[in-house]
Every structure is written in structure tokens, then in C-alpha cells.
């Protein structure tokens, strides 16, 4: 069954002179457990595509289905509910809430959906990423790698159907990056989640089954793992 389906996705911004199209008719389809990378130089439309796939923004034309739900028909609050039920996120700058402890950060998606035993689940996830001992630390008291591991725990907390990762290692040193990436793929395998990765890092992209290369908002190449 298709978990993420993208059809003829186009995004145009109104600009001073003429409309600026940053994404031209992009289409792809991902099944459960697929791993997928979107690569391309700065300004190629990677992040725009990720935002549209995750329902953070609306496309000018074309459609996105997440777990069978067509996003472009939904209001912002309805899309938020879809994100809470089906989507997980990892960001380059971690995006932990600075006023909450590590544990509380992981708790947010669980508590938002009113899940019972949320604290237990969150503690198990923190344990899984090796941070059980730092559950009560604030983000400012954690290193970059630790913060990204907390955000991994948060991303998997609601057992998402699809996980979006935006340059997950962009702010980390090579050693830490490797550990975080390994953990990301491990968790992904265990949970059977569909992974969509946006990155500059071709080495990281090579770890996925499929890679979509963008330039100037257009798909210039799609590489399958077998061809890598």
C-alpha cells in the first residue's frame, strides 16, 4: 500500500515581476518501509518539497496523500492532526522546545494524541537512544548529538507511518553524524516507517533505497538502490 503519494506537485510564489515557480510537477510514490532521499544543490526546491509532503505548506497544484489521506483538501488544523497521527520529523537544528526537558519533549506528540502510558513509552524511547539518564535535562544542557537523539526519540514516539528528516546531520560533526544516522536507520527498520530524507550529503543519500535529484525545482534524475 502506498504510504506517501505525490502527484504533479507544483509550487509557485508570487514575486515582484512574475510568479516564481520553485517546484515543477514532481511525482513519486512510496510504500511502507521505503527509504527515500531528496538531494540537490541549495535552492533546488528540496525543502519546499519536504514541506509540501509533510503538509506544512500547500501546493499551488498537484496532490499529496499520506497514508491514503489527501492533504490538499484539508485545513491547516486538520493537517496538524494528520501530522500528529502519521508523521514524524527530524530537523537540522533539532527544533526541541527549549523550555521543556528531554522527556517532556518526547512526550509532546504522545500527550497531544492523549496516549495512555505516555511517560513509560517516552522513557523507553529515550533509553533506546541512550539518553535515559538525561531525561530531565533541558536542551541547553545537552550536546548537539544528544539533542538530535532526543529529537529521534520524539520523531518515533507516535509510531509514524512516514518520517521526514531535513538534513539530520547538518549541524553535527562526522563521528556524531555517523552515530545518529545509524540510529535513525535502525529505528526506522524496527518500526517499519517510510523514511524521506532531504540532504546535501550524497553519502547519506546512498544509504536509502531511492534518491530523487532536484535542480531548479525539477526532477533531473531518480536513482534506485540497485543502480547505486
Amino acid at each position: 500500500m502506498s504510504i506517501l503519494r505525490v502527484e504533479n506537485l507544483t509550487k509557485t510564489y508570487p514575486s515582484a515581476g512574475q510568479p516564481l515557480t520553485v517546484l515543477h510537477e514532481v511525482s513519486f510514490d512510496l510504500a511502507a518501509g521505503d527509504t527515500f532521499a531528496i538531494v540537490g544543490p541549495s535552492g533546488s526546491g528540496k525543502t519546499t518539497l519536504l514541506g509540501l509532503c509533510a503538509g506544512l505548506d500547500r501546493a499551488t497544484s498537484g496532490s499529496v496523500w499520506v497514508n491514503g489521506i489527501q492533504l490538499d483538501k484539508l485545513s491547516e488544523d486538520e493537517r496538524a492532526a494528520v501530522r500528529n497521527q502519521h508523521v514524524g520529523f527530524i530537523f537540522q537544528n533539532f527544533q526541541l522546545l527549549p523550555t521543556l526537558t528531554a522527556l517532556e519533549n518526547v512526550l509532546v506528540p504522545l500527550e497531544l494524541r492523549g496516549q495512555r502510558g505516555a511517560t513509560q513509552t517516552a522513557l523507553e524511547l529515550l533509553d533506546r537512544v541512550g539518553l535515559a539518564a538525561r531525561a530531565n535535562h533541558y536542551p541547553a544542557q545537552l550536546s548537539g548529538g544528544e539533542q538530535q537523539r532526543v529529537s529521534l526519540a520524539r520523531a518515533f514516539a507516535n509510531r509514524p507511518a512516514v518520517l521526514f528528516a531535513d538534513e539530520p546531520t547538518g549541524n553535527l560533526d562526522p563521528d556524531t553524524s555517523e552515530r545518529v544516522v545509524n540510529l535513525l536507520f535502525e529505528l526506522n527498520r524496527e518500526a517499519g516507517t517510510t523514511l524521506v530524507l532531504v540532504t546535501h550529503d550524497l553519502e547519506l543519500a546512498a544509504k536509502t533505497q531511492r534518491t530523487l535529484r532536484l535542480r531548479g525545482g525539477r526532477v533531473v534524475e531518480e536513482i534506485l538502490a540497485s543502480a547505486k
Partner: protein
Amino acid sequence: MHNTSWLFRMAWRDSRRSRARLLLFMASIILGIAALVGINSFGDNLARSVAEQARELLGADLVLTANHPFDTALEPTLSKLGAARQQEMAFASLVQFRPGRGVRLAQIRARESGFYYGEWQVQPQAAAAQFGRPGTPASALVDDALLAQFGVKIGDSVQVGRVVLPIVGRVLKTPGQSGVSSAVAPAVFIPLAQVPATGLVQPGSRVQYRRAYRFAPGANVAAVVKPLQTRLDKAEIDSETVASRQQSMGRIFADLTRYLGLVAFVALLLGCVGVASAVNLYVREKLAAVAVLRCLGASGKQALLIYLIQTAGLGLVGAIIGAALGAAVQTLLPGVLGDFLPVSISVSVSWTAIATGLLTGLLMAVLFALLPLLSIRRVSPLRVLRVAFEDDTAAPDPVRSLVVAVIALFVLAFAYGQTRDWKLTLGFGAGLLAAFGALAGVGRLLIASVRRFFPAGWGYVWRQGLANLYRPQNQTLTLVTSIGLGTFLLATLFLTQALLLSRVQLADRGRQPNLVLFDIQPEQRPGVEALLKAQNLPLMQRVPIVTMRLSAINGTSVSEIKKDTARGIPAWALTREYRVTYRDTLSRAEKLSAGTAPRLGPDGIPRISVEDGYLGRVKLKLGDTLDFNVQGAPLRTIVGGTRSVELGQVQPSFLVLFPKSVLEQAPQFWVEVTRTPTPAALAGVQQALLRQFPNVSAIDLGLILATLDDIISKVSFVIRFMAGFSILTGLLVLSSSVVISRYQRVRESVLLRTLGASRRQILRITLVEYGLLGLLAALAGIGLAVLAAWALAVFVFEASFGPAVLPLLGLAALVTALTAGIGLLNSRDVLRRSPLEVLRAEG
């Protein structure tokens, strides 16, 4: 419901690291709520004290008052009322003290004995107990103020008319009299039996006759008075019972506290503007966190509620602190207002006032905080991917308009609750809108003009300081509004006070008269004029005065008009004693508006001239007939002309002017006006008058001026006390916005320091920014105040207006210095710490 509890949990968790700062946001409403609770508690205590002490205020169970001796036909009834009764006559007269020969106009209160109820505080107290008792020698009790003025002691004596009485007691407090009223008309108490011997009461003299009654405990006084009411009305006798006194005083003081409550409300509003601006900054800081929450699936409403719960919680804490402070403030108020109150206030906690203050404060704080908080709903989750993402704020937000409407409605409802008068309520609303609007306009203008005319050639410190006025996260609008409003209140107060004083000081200037002689009997006139001539004093004016009452307008009797309230003719016009004069010409201070000067018509009916304002209020027109009762004799007149009277001239002015050849034979007295060049000349003429014409009163305008000055300064102290709350709130808003913007600017300061800026340079940048803000806010506030005072001068007081520039400049300098000082004080903290420490704390 899991969602609600999660919202509260999130609000609590998220506030943990910024609670102290958030509380500072709420600090701005604390003073406003304190002022509101303080004033309303005080009002409740005052009402209770008036209710408890109404009998003491009246000094009796029933008091009957008339401006003429009581009708003898009523005597059989009146002399049977109550369990005990006594008479009093009160009138103004010059008194002279011995030794020292000091002379002053005093209120003579001739009584049979002391008061039935209430504390008549006299030193020694035995003198009060013995006052008027049969068998004790005649003596006088004198107000402390008078004794102090002339350095007179107990044992000295006072001359009242033709009698000289030993002073046996110093009166410190009289039932029903406030500190101010005894300063205006200090009293000399003498036994009633002495009145004939003084020779002061003659036909036409202005004397108030009173009867005080004590009833058996539990007697229903109102039921006793009711069957008599028609006869008392007919005999022009006013009756006052404990209940009616309580009602009238209660009303007066309720009005007083209501208006002070409005001033307190302005302080609260000012605080709320501070809350809105602080929350606005807080929201900007929280945008990233909101975007993450939205990304993780929180709805816009949930995100909004998290922060609304936070601010409401802190608002509640602020309101509780404010209410507690207010409960403390009310204990100070009797000290501030004491001189105006005839009752002693017992202070107790008023839970109604506290609850009202808490609710009002909390509601206002939440509503004002909601304005910036609403933008949270529109934060796009895309912010997590792109920091510079602009939220969709272009479309108008109907909820925002709704909140603004609710705030406006609440303000109007509150003002109406305080004043119970729609016109005043709308005026208050319009005034607030105008003041806020004008100040916000000045703020916007400042931002726009600094941007437009940016002095690119100036030094770095100046450019940086000026740029801070319009850069993102600037506080220009809020600070100009809040500090400007505080300055406006203070400056208006100062200017109005100066205006009032300058009006009364006219009497002191140049060749204006300063001594008015009253109650000169026709046969005394040549003697008084000879006396003035002998003392080399000019006779500046000589005016005959005849007293009369209105009996009918256009043939309809006054009593019928009184019943018909739809006519809208004010009661005072129907019941007052008219003091009129007669002449065929208008004086220099009068100007003909319509018709003619007074003249005798060909039909023998006098054509009178009435004052413009009177014509309007009594709804008259030229040609209407007015029937007067001239001390028993009916007299028909026709309104033949109207005139305007220039105020600010020292001379008797009249509502009604008769022509000559009508009133010459009526009982009358004369008023003469003169000018004494020195205090010694004043004392000389007063002493001579007292010796030869003891019934003639001499009004020393200099003394009246001094008394007025005293009262005005007391009133302005009360208002200053209230305006102080606004000023303090303004400073708190300033302080909190400086502290909040400090967090916003800390990275920038650190960056500047890292790049090599010295502490001194950063301090100077702050000084330029806040100094300019303070200066502009002060000038805007003062400008508005000058405009308001000018409008008051021209439209209300009809006086010329020339504000004193120096004190206003001083005020501007003070406000500027305070603003810059607080700005510097708060920024110092950032500079003391190392850049790294600050950055870590920020993370």
C-alpha cells in the same frame, strides 16, 4: 478531558524558565489594580462610615432650617416635636479678638447648648458641656483655626457685634463640619441669648435659623415629619433627618470615589497597554516553539491556549498582588482625603472591592494579552524549516476585531458603572481614545520620521541609538503612549491648578478692589462712606441689593412648575432667594446680548434684564413675564433684555437686573467695594467698621484667595496622589519593556561587544534611544496637556491662557531623565556579564 489537562501541563512546563520575566509583564497591572481596589475599598468604607455616623453628622435626629424666622403659626406644633429641642441662629460677621485687635469675618453660630449627638471636640472638654447652661456666665467657643491665626489663647476675649465675650474653649471638631469647611468659614459659638445684645441681626440681615430635635430612641422621625411636610414647604422650611442626611452625603461621596475610580482605571488601562506590549515581545520569542508544536500536530487553538493559560495565570498572580496592595493603599486614603470628610473613616477590608478589582484586572489583562497572543494561531509550521518565513498576517483577523470591540465595550461599561452617566461615559471614552490616539500618532510619526530623515552622516552611537527606535522589536509606540499619558495627566493637573489660581488672583492684581462691605443698611450708608473717606480709601462701587423670591413664570406658579419635571427648569432657580439690584445702564463688565437695558415700560411694568446663562437654563425668552415676591409684596416684570457678564472682575454680578424707580422703597441693603493698599489699612478699616457699624460684614478677598489656594492645593494633592499611580505604572511599563527588550537585544549587544564595541559605547547607544523616547513622550504628553488646558481656559473658564513654560520644561527634563535612567539601569546588567554567560543563559 485529556486535552485540557495537557494544555495546562504544557503552559506550566513552558513557563518554568521564564516565570520571573513573565511576572514582570504583569507587574504593570499591579498598580492599576491596587489603585482600583484601594479607591473602591475606601469608597465602601466611606459609605459605611457615613451610614454609621449620619446621626453624629447631623448632631440631632431632625434639623429644620430656614432663611427667615420660623412662622409663628407653626410654633405650637414645632415646640411639641421630639423629646428635646433647641434653636440656633447662624450668620457671618466680623469679629475682633482682644488683645491683638485682630479682625476677621467669621461664621457666628448662636446656640442654646451643644449637640445631641456626635463628638464636639473642645479644649477643655468641660467648656463644651457647660456651653449655654443656665447660670453660667456668657462666653464663646472659637474654632482652632481662628485662634491660631491671631495667636489668641483661652482666657482672651472676642467681640461679636456689640458684645465682648471671654473665650473659654478651643473648638477642634464640630459635628458635620469637615476640615475644609471650617477653614473656609471658621466658627465662633456664642449663647443664643446673646444675639439681641450683639445688635447684629436686623431686618434684611442674612441669618439662617435652625431647630434641632432629639427624639426618643427608636422613634420614627420620618413618620413624624411626613404629615408636617406640606406646611413646612409652604413656610419655606427645609427638614433634614438622619436618613436624608445619610442619603445626600452618601451620594456626594459615592460620586467622589467614582471619579477617583476612573483615574485608577486609567492607571489600569495604562498597565494593560504594558501587558499587551510585553506579551507581544514574549510571543515573538515563542514563535519558533509554536511552529514546532504546530509541526508535531498541535492545532492553532491549542497553541494559543497554552500561552493564554500562562498569561492568565500570571495575570491572576499580578491581580492578587495588586488587590493586596490596594487593600493596603486604602488605609492611606483617609489621610489623603481626610480634610474633605466630615466623618472619621473606620478602615476594614471590602471584599466586594477586592473581588471587583481582581475580576476587572484579570479580565483586562487577559483581553489585552489576547491581542498579541491571537497571532499565535497564524504561526505557520513552515517556520521550522525556514527561520525567515513570514506568517500569514496580511488578512484581517475578525477575532482580533472582536477582542478590540470587547475591550472597548468593557471600558465603556466600567466607566458607566463608575459614573452612571452616559454623557460622561462617552466623554471619558472619547477622551481616552483621543489621548491614546494622539500619543500613538506621535509614536508612529517618530518612527516614520527617524526612518525618513535618518541622519546617515552622524556618529555610530547616534545612528545605532536612533535606528533602535524603528528596528524590529522596538518599543517606541508603547513607551511613548504609556509615559506620554502619565506626563499628560501630571501636566494637565499642573496647568489647571495654575489656571484656577490665576482666576482668583485677579483680585490681588493692580487696582482691582480687594475689600467688599456687605449688609450696609440704607441709613448707615452715609456713615460708612464717611468712614472710608476718613481712611483715604476709594469708594469704587456702591450697589443696592433687594432680596426677593420668584413666584410665577408666565402666570404659572412656581409650585406648579416644580411638580412638572418635564419642563426641565432647575430647582435652584425656583426656590432660591434672588438678590437683585436696580439701575438703568449696564456696567463695563456687562454686554447687551438682546433686547434693551433695564427700563420701566410705558405700561408701568418693569422690563428687567437677565443674564444669558440664566435665560437659557430657565428656558425664558424676551417678553416672558416673571412674578416676584418682594418680601411680601407681589411684583410683575417682563424680560426686556439679556446680557453677558464678563467673569474675572471683582464686583457683584446679578442674574436679574431691575430698572430704577421700582425698588427704591423696598427693604434693601447696600454693598460697597473698595481697595485697601496695605494689610495695616485693611486692619484699620475693619476695626473702625466693627466699632461703628458692627452688623456690616467686610469680606477680605485676600483671605478668600489664601483659603482658595489652600483648598486647591489640597484637591490637587488628592489628584496628584491618584495620577501618581499612572506615572508609576508608566515607569513600570517602561522598566518591564526595557527588561524584555533586553532579552531581545542581548544577542545584538553581545555581538557588538564581540566585534569590539566598548561598554561605554553600548551604554551611550541605550542613552540616546531611551533619552529620545522619554523626551518625545514627555513633550507629546505636555503638548496634549497644554491643548487640554487651553480648551478648559477658553471654553470653560473663559479666561486667557498663557502656560508657565519653565515648570513644564522641568517636567519634561524629569521624565526624560527617568526614562533614560531606567533604560541604562536595566541594560547595565547585560553588560556586567560575559558574552558567553549571556548566550548560554539565552539558549
